């Protein structure tokens, strides 16, 4: 087993996994927010359709960030992967069910044109969209704060140990923060009145998210001071995260939704980074006396694996980033109720407008 030294691949992979989770929370974070809010923000079906359409083309590729984070953990830190997923068995089962329901709700909602069909998915979507960040918040708060571990590194004491005041607060904080993040995203991506309503939602959500975030940040900082091996980066990241989040409210009030969205984005990135910084070099903190915490060194794969994986990541991560940014650019147009009020047949549309002319601000689309 490699130890800390010349070229620390374990730290590199820990950082990469942290980046993957951060990317997931940043990108799927606003998907969750949209999923939680669209039935309440949209007054009729075309409006809801427009709101949901802001994430339709991209949500699936954002969910892949969590899949790759899981796969990378399996490959780079099998010991961490095994302990975390088996230790939080029922929580991950809940996360899986919510991911399944949310995915199917997004994909199937518009595949049938009946009011009751859509209403059912409009109930399933917000619940599953809130459940995922809540449960992931519980998991991350718990592994940074401490779990009972046996000497082998397995979690003991049942699933109840996961739910502490701190972990539940983390769950609610993520839910509120992503609702705000999503509302601001919708304020950027919609038009003809929808963006105003989304901004109003953001302003209403802002105080709730702010209070939760402040309490969570302070609590995390206090705990980091007593338990984190490297507390300084944690303070810095938390210290930067709070003003970024704080700025989003006033910016939304000043009708600068894009800047406000940048604020919640920065806050998400910094907050998740702070949690991982608090963890490092541990990957699961032990709360059991005599059982040491799991660390990047104790749970890592062998040197060859890490080198091979590093080369592959160095080649493919930039490629993935380039085409994901390009996809964001392709789907940058603002959407409104108008785009969905009078659906033409898509064939109609294609044959009428080829090639490649797209009226500014209009949506792209396939038909149902």
């Amino acid at each position, binding site marked *: 087993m490699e130890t800390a030294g010349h070229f620390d691949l374990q730290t590199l992979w820990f950082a990469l996994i942290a980046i993957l989770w951060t990317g997931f929370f940043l990108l799927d974070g606003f998907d969750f927010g949209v999923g939680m809010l669209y039935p309440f923000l949209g007054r009729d079906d075309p409006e809801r*359709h427009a709101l949901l359409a802001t994430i339709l*083309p991209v949500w*699936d590729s954002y969910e*892949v960030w*969590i*899949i790759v984070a*899981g*796969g*990378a953990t*399996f*490959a780079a830190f*099998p010991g961490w*992967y*095994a302990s975390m*997923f*088996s*230790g939080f*068995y*029922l929580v*991950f*089962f809940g996360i*899986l*069910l919510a991911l*399944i329901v949310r*995915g*199917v709700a997004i*994909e199937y909602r518009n*595949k*049938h044109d009946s009011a009751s069909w859509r209403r059912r998915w409009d109930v399933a979507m917000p619940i599953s969209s809130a459940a995922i960040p809540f449960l992931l918040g519980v998991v991350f708060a718990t592994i940074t704060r401490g779990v009972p571990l046996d000497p*082998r590194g*397995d*979690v003991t004491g049942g699933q109840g140990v996961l739910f502490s005041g701190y972990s539940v607060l983390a769950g609610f904080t993520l839910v509120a923060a992503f609702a705000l993040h999503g509302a601001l995203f919708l304020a950027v991506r919609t038009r003809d009145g929808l963006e105003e309503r989304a901004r109003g939602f953001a302003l209403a959500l802002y105080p709730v998210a702010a209070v939760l975030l402040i309490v969570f940040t302070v609590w995390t900082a206090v705990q980091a001071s007593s338990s984190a091996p490297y507390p300084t980066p944690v303070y810095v990241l938390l210290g930067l995260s709070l003003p970024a989040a704080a700025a989003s409210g006033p910016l939304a009030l000043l009708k600068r939704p894009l800047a406000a969205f940048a604020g919640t984005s920065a806050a998400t990135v910094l907050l998740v980074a702070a949690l991982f910084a608090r963890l490092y070099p541990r990957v699961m903190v032990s709360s059991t006396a005599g059982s040491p915490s799991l660390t990047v060194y104790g749970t890592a*794969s*062998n040197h*060859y*694996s890490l080198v*091979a*994986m590093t080369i*592959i990541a160095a080649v493919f991560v930039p490629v*993935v980033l380039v085409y994901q940014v390009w*996809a964001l650019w*392709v*789907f940058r147009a603002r959407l409104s109720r108008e*785009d969905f009020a*009078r*659906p033409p047949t898509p*064939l*109609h*549309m294609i*044959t*009428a407008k080829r*090639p*490649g*002319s797209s009226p500014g601000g*209009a*949506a792209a*689309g*396939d*038909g*149902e």
Partner: protein
Amino acid sequence: MGTTAVLDRWQFAVTIVYHFLFVPLTIGLAWFVAGMQTAWHRTGKEHYLRMTRFFGKLFLINFALGVVTGIVQEFQFGMNWSVYSRFVGSVFGAPLAIEGLVAFFLESTFIGLWLFGWDRLPPRAHLAMIWLVVAGTSSSAYFILAANSWMQHPVGYAMKGGRAEMTSLGDVLLQPLQITHFFHTIAASLVTAGLLVVAVAAYRLRRARREGTGPDDPDVRLFRAAAHGALWVTAVASVVVIGVGHFQAQLLVRYQPMKMAAAEALYETQAPAPLSLLAIGPWEKHPERNNVDIAIPHGLSVLSTNNWNGEIRGINDIQREYEGRYGPGDYTPIIGSVYWSWRLMITVGFLVLLYSAAWLWTIHRRGWASSRRLAWTAYAFLALPFLANTAGWLVTEMGRQPWIVHGLLRTNDAISPTVGTGHVITTLAGFAAVYGVLAAIMGWLMVRAVRAGPERPAPEVTREDALPPMLH
């Protein structure tokens, strides 16, 4: 075997078999849709465009379930099989992580761009999107099969500190068993999708005929072209399935002799060995013999070793050898299941080949006169590839037992020690219930989409008429 281990295995079996109902169809349909769109791009004929969009819709309904059930598979290794995960993470995790990074990002990003990019991208770029989806889904199959092939035949690793550590990624990704697994699976996916296209086309043609629509109707032209193309693909792909399957079996005789001996219900080592056509043994997990065995002399020797008198080792002999090598224990899989799954898979392979060849011949000789018969046979054949795909996995996974990693780790020893029986019962019941509901919803959507048929041809539209585009 402990109750929890049994339940863990059931959960894995249920979730993977369910997942694998959608995966081959997704992979195969991606190729079909890409081919159809390419035909449209090349010829400019509108019926190819309508075909692309019609089958594209079926592809998307199916794709969604493949995606959401796939994530269960990834998390499940850590959740239910933590000892396994620690043991093999360095080797097995790598292709899994590469699959995510290389394949999943590709397919998920470009499927969005394909679906919602019709009017935002120039035609050529839009066509490239669907081909990138094909690259994504097919390479995804490659990496996950590489991970599975390693469990069947571990290569490129060294044992260190009680776990397998990777020493060669090239060996893991490129071993011969994996190459045959991949082509076998891709060809089987094309057969699966091909028979779906044939069945759907047959239904639409039959309906058009009942409504008295003539051969010049655009829908009739569309579905005749689709059925004809799909029959060709199915015929060629089933030849590949059978051919590759043959070489795969030869490799397995070398790497996993017990699996192949069980698949042939061959108890005693024989040279020459006969090819079993119908074996009936006592109804036990591990019967000692066959009561009935109708066989072709020399058949198995020739197929497995390319030698008229080649020696094939039997179950009892391999069991004794393994006891010597690995200590006392039961190294025999459930023979009846492996034997009959193996036969089911092979029978379907040949039936599909005969079926598609027969219909191609009929259409060539007599045209499209008998669409009613085409419809009924196509419905009957639609189920077969799904059965064969499932049977294939059962042979692969059940035939490997009691090993989770052949020769290295037993399934029984691989489960999560801290996950209790009650938890596994909860999740098994939960997945089964949710999957049941999803299957019903998905089947209903598919049937509805097929009943509704393709979009009608576009009337002449002027730019001023162009309505605002819509999503989804």
